[in-house]
């Protein structure tokens, strides 16, 4: 017998007399308050910055962030209209821009797909994430139940990288970006 068969046979032996426990249903999601406002509030509580912007506002936000920077790293889904800076490799870029798969209000989270990229989400010290307003879910459960297909990897980001491992003092930007800016895009794109 190989390791798999031995482990499974020990499990079946162990469970022979054990009553089977039922799997509870998922709870009904709570009635949603305005998810956009809630999302921005939670982002701020997580130490991230959230902005509700239209097309013009997004360009202005990006121009502000881009001031004095030589370039940026982009996720595949970032529209050309928002690629204001020359593209740099993520290893060198002072700014990463990505487009989120969805966002979650209750936890202040943006969900980033490996289809958009990975390095631009992690290596630059500042990370700007674009997400369309209709993709902001009130709760994690609603977002997960609605997911139709899963990419190779999803990263849920809920604020800047942080650690309190050195003497219990909170430090930002330990490995990932020390600054997370989220632009919720309103209108058509």
């Amino acid at each position: 017998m190989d390791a798999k068969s031995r482990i499974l046979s020990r499990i079946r032996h162990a469970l022979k007399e054990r009553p089977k426990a039922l799997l509870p249903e998922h709870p009904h999601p709570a009635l949603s308050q305005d998810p956009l406002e809630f999302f921005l509030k939670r982002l701020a509580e997580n130490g991230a910055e959230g902005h509700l912007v239209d097309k013009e506002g997004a360009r202005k936000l990006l121009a502000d962030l881009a001031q004095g920077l030589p370039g940026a790293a982009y996720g595949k889904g970032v529209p050309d209209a928002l690629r204001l800076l020359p593209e740099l490799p993520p290893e060198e870029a002072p700014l990463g821009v990505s487009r989120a798969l969805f966002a979650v209000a209750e936890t202040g989270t943006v969900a980033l797909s490996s289809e958009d990229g990975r390095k631009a989400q992690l290596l630059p010290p500042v990370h700007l994430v674009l997400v369309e307003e209709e993709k902001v879910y009130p709760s994690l459960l609603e977002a997960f139940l609605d997911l139709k297909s899963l990419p190779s990897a999803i990263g849920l980001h809920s604020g800047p990288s942080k650690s309190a491992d050195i003497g219990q003092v909170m430090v930002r930007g330990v490995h990932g970006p020390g600054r997370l800016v989220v632009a919720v895009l309103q209108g058509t794109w």
Partner: protein
Amino acid sequence: MQVKAKLYPKEAARLLREHPGVREAVTGATLHFEEGRKRAYQEIDAEAWRERAKRVKDHLLTHLDHYLELAEKRLQEKGVQVHWAEDPEEAHRILREIVARHGVKRVVKAKSMLTEELGVNPLLESLGVEVYETDLGEYLIQLLGEPPSHIVGPAIHLALPDIQRLFHQRFGTPLDASPEALAAVARKVLREAFLTADLGISGANFLVAETGTLALMENEGNIRLSTSLPRVHVAFVGIEKLLPRFADLALFLPLTARAATGQRLSTYVSLIQGPAKEGEEGPKEVHVVLVDHGRTSLLHDPEAWEVLRCLRCGACLNACPVYRQTGGHPYGYVYSGPIGAVLDPGLLGLEDTYPLPYASTLCGACYEACPVKIPIPKLLLTWRQRAVERGLVPTWEKGAMQAFSKVMQSPSLYRLFSKALRGLPLPQDLLPLLKAWTEGRGPLRPSPKPFHELWQELNKE
């Protein structure tokens, strides 16, 4: 990992004598975690969340064979290579083969208690592979050559001056360098490691059977980097870490974060379905090693099997007044505190761990904190009872407890003994129980009058 749990009482006393600063550092850090957890539980219907999580895990564990086979099938469909390991030796063989096949020279590691169990770092070092622990706290204790002291905060026993001294010796930073400056030094070393490593190694918080999703929680970004940059990713997963459905993560991710650190969700969660597709960034090869290492024998235990619900959040450590005095090192194994005291005997056998169930006041704070309602106080008693039955406790203890019971049940005997103990000089060095007490403290000085006399006098006034 070498098991030194038998030495618990001696090691705890020694640590308190020789490193008094540890108590202060651990108490400070755990109370901070504990306050955060309480605040985070108050914000939700914690009882309902905990009950639901308990039921999902009980369902999973009572159908474990089914869900393991489903998880393997889903992982393989997505191109993940699945391995099974009964013990550390088998896990080593699997890892050795992967290292040899890819000519691995450098490894970046995400914090994982299971890889501590398996002794992954010593193995890799013996193969001439450079290993970088990339969680900041884990990196600190790797530099010091110490095991983790806490499941979530491996370096909580270190105070800022300890770390300033360490970095001064290693990297020449000034002795008064700020935490920001120290973190920047570590970031630079580890960024280089991320960009040049051939292999990333991680554990997993959860493995979803329905979709074959590995879920990993963290705050620094080192796990996302370890599982994204190297061309190969190996995840070691305990067989009890499964969840039935993808949407169960909507309960378990935030519940774990609230219990562990008081957050609504950890800053980063990686949900990994498989290797990168053509033209995508990410590892070209993903391996999952499903590890038993004592878990099936725990599942067989009619009482202690409930411990397998454990999410490794560390909430019971933070709540425990005994753990707070020393941190995790004296417990002598990967898992310390209340959960270690009930998990370690189940994983390793009671013979090698029997002092651990006694490392508790049975106050019950661990149960209140536990996000999956593991009846830790009840199980501590179960293990103690078994230790007595198997003759693992000293023989004098049984006689002493019988005598104590007799005296406590008779008011006249109680008065007699209480008077005698106060009148005579205590044979402090002879009685083993008293000796254990006085070794680290001053001699016992009984009050000149017993409480019941003081009480009577007070009532007369």
